[in-house]
């Protein structure tokens, strides 16, 4: 009765699929329980997932490995929900980011805690105004940022997320996301200043 006057968007019909790609074929098989197909998905995407989780985790490789495994286990569980309307890699990516961020939240013990970017401590992390020994290893410098600012910077500047997406994922206002990014970038540039420019 309702559908007669309000045809729902295509999301409502699970078997309307776009053109197959290698990923989608693998996803369909894996969603039906084929573990070999799932392994092939893993091989195709694990390095990408590991990279983003590693960055969000501040360079802790052991932790990133654990979380990468967690992420793929979740992927297996949620595969039946995949809509086939977007690229699998995008969907996988979001799940991986979410897994890493959830871990960050529970590690800090305060899910809602917002770091105050105007707090003087923020600027002095570890008492360093500049890190000459790290040269220009950007990853190492990013790892020094406080977790929330690091998350915003990684998602925006490295992964290309928009502020609306970031704020949704992190549970903050869009304005806070922009403020965090602004400060994180300034810090990085300050720390990276040296032969290449003034601090």
């Amino acid at each position, binding site marked *: 009765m309702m559908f007669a006057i309000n045809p729902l968007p295509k999301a409502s019909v699970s078997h309307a699929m776009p053109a197959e790609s290698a990923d989608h074929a693998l996803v369909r098989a894996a969603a039906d329980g084929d573990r070999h197909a799932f392994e092939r998905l893993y091989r195709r995407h694990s390095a990408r997932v590991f990279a983003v989780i590693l960055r969000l985790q501040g360079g802790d490789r052991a932790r990133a490995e654990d979380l990468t495994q967690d992420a793929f286990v979740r992927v297996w569980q949620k595969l039946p929900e995949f809509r086939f309307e977007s690229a699998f890699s995008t969907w996988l990516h979001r799940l991986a980011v979410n897994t890493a961020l959830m871990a960050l939240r529970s590690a800090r013990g305060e899910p809602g805690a917002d770091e*105050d970017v*105007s707090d003087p401590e923020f600027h002095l992390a570890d008492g360093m105004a500049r890190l000459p020994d790290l040269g220009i290893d950007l990853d190492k410098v990013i790892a020094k940022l406080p977790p929330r600012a690091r998350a915003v910077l990684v998602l925006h500047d490295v992964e290309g997320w928009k*502020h609306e997406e970031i704020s949704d994922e992190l549970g903050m*206002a*869009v*304005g*806070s996301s*922009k*403020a965090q990014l602004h400060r994180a970038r300034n810090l990085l540039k300050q720390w990276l200043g040296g032969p290449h420019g003034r601090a």
Partner: protein
Amino acid sequence: MNPMMEFPMSTAMSVSFRPKLLAALVMTVLSAPLLAATPIAETAAPLDARGSFEASNVRGRISVTAWDRNEVSWSGSLGSGAKLIVEKNATRVSLRVESENGSSWTGWNKGPREDSVLVVKVPASASLDLSAVSANIDVTAMRGSASIEAESVSGEVGLRASSTDKLEISSVSGDVSFEGQAGRVDAETVSGDLRISGASGDVSVETVSGSAIVRATTVTEFEAASVSGDIDFEGALAANGRMDVESMSGDVSITLPANTSARVTAEAFSGDLSNAFGLTVEDEDGPGSTMHGKIGGGSASIEIESFSGDVDLRSR
């Protein structure tokens, strides 16, 4: 004029019948609906100092004033077709104006044709629950009630000189106003205007197209949400307070003391952002601009989001 002299009388008519008939005819000729309304004889019932008083009326008025007696006293008038249903015990008194013959009043053609008016005095600290459709509601001089709720569909809702822990007032198209003190105020309209003034703790105003004007001494929490109505706040924000304003196209004007201490995050898709506190306004790549930073020590938090409404943070 003596009606008895105007009309020829038949000696066959009984004496008792004629005066009533003639009186009724006179009434009809004068055709004053007011006169057809039946007065409510002043009645009183005891009520605990902190008991609750409820009233509902479809059309006309509900008028409540506080007094020092542990008693509810009511009077007023009932429009034709209306009756008053009273329920009472030591802790609760309820007055409901309903259709006389029990039929429903919903629907335009079936509604009451006349106003009914309830004029009530209640213990000053009683809790109130007042409900109206097109009746206006006014409440005066309550002192320290635990809770006051008043809602109307098209009538106005107004509270004056009153203090309560918790206040909920709403109207769809009528104006809503509160002057007094409350631990928490929740005020909501669709198109009616909202006016809140006094020293309050937490204030929340929500409207679709009405304007919301809030004049506070100090608020701990201020939430305002509008679709197209303007939002205008003036007052102080407590040191660890929180302000959260959302508007689609209504303009937002927030006036705060110059020595306010707050972190500000404001953004607008196409509205203009401006402030008197030296905060920078930045344009984003693509549509949208933001205004954020710290005022004073940055202890409280202010978040304002607008789509096309302008946002202005002023200082006094």
